[in-house]
């Protein structure tokens, strides 16, 4: 079943075109990587799907519906930046998610936070950057969502943290859903990908099954990525 569909999607900021005629169909029960160099439009595409940006033209549907109130209930979104309210405590943040998301599994979130030794009564503003990123990941992956939009979850973290992030994603995502994960660190996520989408200068360069791409090129996706996007 198609979870996300983009038709002739265009996004411009003033005169600058960030996405130019994106046509994309993403099905459920897949982990799909969105790869491209910095500035290729990965974050823009994800934010358009989450409706944090308004498209200049074109159409997006999620589960057959246009982005809005209903689709936000289907999507679990991990942005590429810190969005946690400083004044809240970790426990209050769990209350917040439990209040607003019907598919939020509080027990799972609490267990994951305990594994990270996070104090529920601790204020978020006193947590380190790395811990806050992990809290965001825990919140995102503790939902049984139809779609997981993960924007650069591996960027700027050490290799051990990367392992933790990938492990957390794999252990907790809803297998009937779709995981759409943007990154330019292909090596780390290549083993878990079912499909890959390459984005270059706001256009889809390719969208293939990961195994097929490796067979066709005779190389790993990471090697192929380096060749395609060589400076």
């Amino acid at each position, binding site marked *: 079943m198609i979870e996300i569909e983009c038709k002739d999607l265009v996004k411009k*900021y*003033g005169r600058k075109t960030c996405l130019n005629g994106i046509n994309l169909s993403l099905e459920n029960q897949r982990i799909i990587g969105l790869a491209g160099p910095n500035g290729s439009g990965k974050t823009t595409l994800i*934010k358009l799907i*989450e*409706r*944090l*940006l*308004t498209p200049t033209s074109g159409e997006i549907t999620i589960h057959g519906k246009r982005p809005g*109130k*209903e689709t*936000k*209930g289907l*999507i679990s*979104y991990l*942005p590429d*930046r*810190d*969005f*946690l*309210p400083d*004044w809240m405590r970790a426990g209050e943040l769990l209350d*917040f998610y439990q*209040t*607003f*998301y019907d598919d939020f599994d509080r027990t799972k979130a609490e267990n994951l936070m305990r594994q990270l030794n996070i104090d529920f009564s601790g204020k978020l503003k006193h947590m380190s950057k790395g811990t806050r990123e992990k809290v965001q990941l825990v919140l995102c992956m503790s939902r049984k969502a139809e779609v997981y939009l993960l924007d650069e979850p591996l960027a700027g973290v050490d290799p051990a943290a990367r392992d933790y992030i990938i492990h957390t994603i794999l252990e907790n995502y809803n297998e009937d859903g779709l995981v759409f994960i943007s990154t330019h660190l292909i090596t780390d996520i290549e083993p878990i990908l079912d499909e890959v989408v390459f984005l270059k200068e706001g256009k889809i360069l390719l969208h293939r099954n990961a195994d097929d791409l490796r067979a066709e090129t005779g190389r790993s996706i990471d090697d192929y990525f380096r060749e395609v996007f060589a400076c």
Partner: protein
Amino acid sequence: MLSKLIGYEMKAFGRILLPVYAAILAVAFILGIDFRIFSGSDQSAGSTVLTLILGLMIAAVFIVVGLLSIGRFYTNLLGREGYLMFSLPTSTGNLIWAKVISTVLWSIFSTVVALIACVIPVCMYPGFWKGAQEADFKVVGAEVSASLLKYAGNIVVGVLIVIAAVAATIVCIYAAIAIGHLWTEHRILGSLLAFIGLEILNSIFLGLAGTGAFAVGSYPDLNRAMIAGGTEAVILVLFAAEIALYGVITWVILDRKLNLE
């Protein structure tokens, strides 16, 4: 969902305002003690200073409510927290209304706290209770009840007008911030310019209100109560129109033109 959002907003406001309320009431109580101790003598310099501090704190609490409301709209919806709020499965209208309603509620609470803070020192003044003991409570109670019943309608309409004025002001500021957000750069400057533009629009609204009130007042067959009622109705309708207009502007920008950085 709206009630849940209001609950969240109330909590966010409360963490700052509740300690301020506690401080105001504490100063009022200390002032009352000061009145009690020095009631027989010339008033101390301390009571003058405390009265001044209390007045400033009461004025400050309303400023804090306004600043919090603006700050929360900007950071919670258009700042990095917007990634959290705009990902919630709720409508943009609910996000906006939750902030407006919370601001109105905290303005009401602040007014109540300010009134209590004014009453506390008066009640603690020894002469007050002495006078109260001498007064016939039945007569006073009957007079107060009669006055309240007589002017109940006016009181309710007056309160509604104040609430509508607060809501209209807040939505106007939200609309200005939202308009500024349409700019790709210098968004705060854009918001300030938009606010000036909307204030000009407000003055046109007020002009209309004045004309409407004058038109009602100049109607020869109306008695004073009808003139007052008509004027109040005109004011309420205009505030409602302002809230609707600025609310729609804010909603259109946040719902149809949102570009969260």
